[in-house]
């Protein structure tokens, strides 16, 4: 047994997290910053932070992940990190020449109280930031929020630093995709383009973290939102933000700063959420939904109808980040599946929990929910009453292995399979892929467990 000390009996824990279902804010900020074209993410803290974040993102994407660090020593921790950040800014611009340095803080620099804007202003006053180059920042202490709120913080920083108010509105729609895969970002853009819309997506890691092998390494790949496009977000017609927790702050900030109205929706995972996404674009921009998208939608409905018997009433355990968890839960319920154990590590608030409870209100099983929970508790629930399917990141495979439960990888991080960065799970096509993955897991198990007599050719 891999998790041999996990007991069925649940003892209350208030201080000890075991097998977390979240990680810290800075990695989310780093990921978001990689979605700006020509950007060097910078971790203002000890070098361990950036090493860990780069390693985790690299393992998840199997792609180069660039970032720099202030490399605090004990001295910097006592006297403040200003000198380190100044030196880093000098070195980064002279050696790596990015368009933007996106600084995020850490528990270390936040605890000692380093004031990033003050340091950056000093750097600018001293001429350390070349003309036409930018240093932006987000406060992301690791002792608050999670990787998701860190992502939200850096996304909001893009608005705070770059969005410009304009006298005239364009017909462009801003898309804030949330903490999703590069493949998902590309799919969201494709769907909007299919509707004939001009869009600006930020951040946008497609083409950055799923790049090709060409024999030439490009430190700043062609993908990512440009600074010029970020400026124009302030004159867009409106903003569609996907995922309340990851994208809401930036959308609201843009509304406040530049009066760009926003719609904050669930991540477009599953039929209903995708319908709402498409319908929102249709209303906001006043464009027709092309037959091509309606066709894709119909294909998705077709799979659900054809295979409904295999979904029906299956008990599912889900661990994921809040926006994903909510959208996936609604999707599973819409398939007549029964999501019974729901855990997110991020403390996403009472409102989030209320939405999640509402989503499972009609599920004919007792449903356990823990917002701000961990995978150890999740595993104990499963030991008490099993499920038919698990959905979560790669760490869930230890539970799946021990309990012998079919398992679909979804979320962050996925360290042991490829595909997530190339094939989306959002939109109708992404929905079809998710359906395929769920069916593969369930039907492979059915095949495995069938006797010689009950083994089926056609399913």
């Amino acid at each position, binding site marked *: 047994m*891999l*998790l*041999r*000390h996990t*007991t069925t009996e649940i003892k209350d824990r*208030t*201080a*000890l*997290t*075991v*097998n*977390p279902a979240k*990680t*810290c804010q*800075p990695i989310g900020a780093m990921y978001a910053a990689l979605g700006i074209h020509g950007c060097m993410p910078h971790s203002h803290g*000890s*070098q*361990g*932070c950036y*090493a*860990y974040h780069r*390693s*985790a993102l*690299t*393992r998840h994407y*199997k*792609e*180069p992940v660039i*970032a*720099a*660090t*202030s*490399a*605090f*020593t*004990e*001295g910097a*921790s006592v006297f403040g990190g200003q000198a*380190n950040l100044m*030196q880093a800014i000098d*070195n980064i611009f*002279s*050696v*790596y020449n990015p368009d933007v340095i996106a600084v995020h803080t850490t*528990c*270390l620099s936040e*605890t000692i109280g380093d004031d990033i804007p003050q340091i950056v202003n000093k750097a600018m006053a001293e001429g350390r930031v070349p003309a036409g180059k930018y240093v932006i920042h987000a406060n992301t*202490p*690791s*002792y608050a929020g*999670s990787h998701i709120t860190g992502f939200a913080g850096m996304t909001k920083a893009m608005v705070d630093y770059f969005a410009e108010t304009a006298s005239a509105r364009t017909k462009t729609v801003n898309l804030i995709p949330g903490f999703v895969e590069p493949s998902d970002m590309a799919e969201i853009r494709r769907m909007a383009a299919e509707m004939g819309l001009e869009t600006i997506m930020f951040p946008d890691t497609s083409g950055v973290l799923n790049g090709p*092998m060409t*024999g*030439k*390494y*490009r*430190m700043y790949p062609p993908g990512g939102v440009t600074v010029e496009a970020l400026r124009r977000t302030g004159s867009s017609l409106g903003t569609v933000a996907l995922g309340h927790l990851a994208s809401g702050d930036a959308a609201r900030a843009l509304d406040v700063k530049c009066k760009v109205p926003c719609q904050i929706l669930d991540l477009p995972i599953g039929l209903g959420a995708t319908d709402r996404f498409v319908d929102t674009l249709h209303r906001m921009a006043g464009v027709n939904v092309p037959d091509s998208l309606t066709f894709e939608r119909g294909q998705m409905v077709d799979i659900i109808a054809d295979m409904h018997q295999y979904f029906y009433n299956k008990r599912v355990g889900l661990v994921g980040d809040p926006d994903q968890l909510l959208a996936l839960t609604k999707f599973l319920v819409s398939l007549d599946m029964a999501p019974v154990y729901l855990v997110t590590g991020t403390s996403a608030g009472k409102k989030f929990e209320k939405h999640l409870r509402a989503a499972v209100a009609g599920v004919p099983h007792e449903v356990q929910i823990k917002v701000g929970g961990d995978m*150890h508790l999740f595993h104990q629930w499963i030991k008490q009453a099993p499920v038919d399917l698990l959905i979560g990141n790669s*760490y869930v495979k*230890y539970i799946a292995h021990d309990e012998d439960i079919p398992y679909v990888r979804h979320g962050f991080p996925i360290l042991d399979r490829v595909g997530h960065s190339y094939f989306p799970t959002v939109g109708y096509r992404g929905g079809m892929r998710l359906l395929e993955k769920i069916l593969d897991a369930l039907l492979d198990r059915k095949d495995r467990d069938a006797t010689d007599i009950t083994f089926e050719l056609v399913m």
Partner: protein
Amino acid sequence: MTETARSQTAPIEGPDPEKVKAELLAKYPPKVARKRAKQIIVNRLEPGDKVPEINANVRTVPGLMSQRGCCYAGCKGVVLGPTRDIVNITHGPIGCGFYSWLTRRNQTDPDTTPDGHNFMTYCFSTDMQEKEIIFGGEKKLRQAIQEAYDNFKPKAIAVFATCPVGLIGDDIHSVCREMKAALGINVFGFSCEGYKGVSQSAGHHIANNQIFKHVVGLDDTIGAGEFRVNLLGEYNIGGDAFEIERIFEKCGITTVATFSGNSSIDAFANSHTADLNLIMCHRSINYVAEMMEKKFGVPWIKINFIGAEATAKSLRKIAAYFDDPALTERVEAVIAEELPAVQAARDDIRPRTAGKRAMLFVGGSRAHHYQELFRELGMRTLSAGYEFAHRDDYEGRKVLPGVKVDADSRNIEELDVCQDPDRYRPRKTPEELAALSAKGLEFKDYQGMMPEMPEGSMVIDDISQFETDLMIEKYRPDIFCAGIKEKYMIQKHGIPMKQLHSYDYGGPYAGFKGAVNFYREIDRMVNSRVWGYLKAPWQTNPELAATYAWE
């Protein structure tokens, strides 16, 4: 100059290393260039194994993109990570515990200890929140230790401090003492805040100190076995320690404790009863060996089980130390039995690898050890360097008296260890030691990497992303070895990259079977078809027009 170095002093092909060095430095601001100039060295070999001085174990330059991690990573991640039966609680925000959760591939076999405890698949954290940063985290830590005990009933709990813990002044050691008394099990802490020192290396030192202080020597039982050794600085990545243990068993050598691959805290407690300490990774573990010798009289020698020849040589060193004819005979028999399969694999593969060129930038010992395996494949190391090593790992321990201790290193505690009045037991008389030295068995010595590298090869300490990129461009090596952060950047250049931290999820590469695994792996990598697919047909012959028709 050692024999291996002498045998390959052919000039390095490609651009002149001094010119490349100048080009590497030209991009840097003057102050940075001055500093890096002392860390980028073109190797020279002078009589008496003298090599040029290299600056190492110095601060990372902010903004340059180094490979390094932090003190916590070296302590919790590297040294204590592979010990399966301690509940390791990270006291701090969630990230540090999360990132060090199962990411280092330390294999372990819990069925080799009677209680079968294994907590390595778990991540324990106090998930510190803003409230604790403001009001202190000791209360939460105390409660977390209690909950760990209530839920898991371990025989030991260790606490690891992260950056904010040191800043807000939580006294983890007093909490540990208190909980040790309350629970009646061993509870101890590590002040391994990430900002300490200049790299993981500080964390190794802190881990060594605390394990020595709180665990080594707790169990004086002298176990079975005639030739009892500890294997130090072997972390069982991909099963390396298993392969070494297999060979030891065949030879009749008993491993009392491995620090810390496939290890149990019980073995650490008993490790001072061994008669010889064998050091694999000198950088991360030499402190325990030094302290064990001072306090208990266990001598140490440097060995290396990376490379079949090196493995045979190391086994012979052990046999020479014990100076027992039966052991010597068995060791020779095992070498004779194991080498033919290795030789056969080498004969098969070498024609496809000979003459190819490698670069290695990793860790504190592997950039040295793995040159052995490349040599066995007929490959040459153009350039190498460590991520977090010190001058002695480059130039040999003979430079130790002259190594400057800067403020960052001075902050790491040096334990004051003295002879144990009851348990100090010299394993050999001074005369015996002198006789063994005269026969070539060097005690307390490590020659370092540079004396074994050819003239003109470039040695780069704490290489940056920019330097990596330029070295690849200038020399186009056939294979590059580093870690996960470097992996895909290098492969985008169209050059195969072998991870020497995680072994790319392969291994073992130690010992005889490991050598064969490594030969096969390098053969696969440097001869893979994939590197021929980088250009599409229309990119290599753009003028081609509609001539694909059947003739």
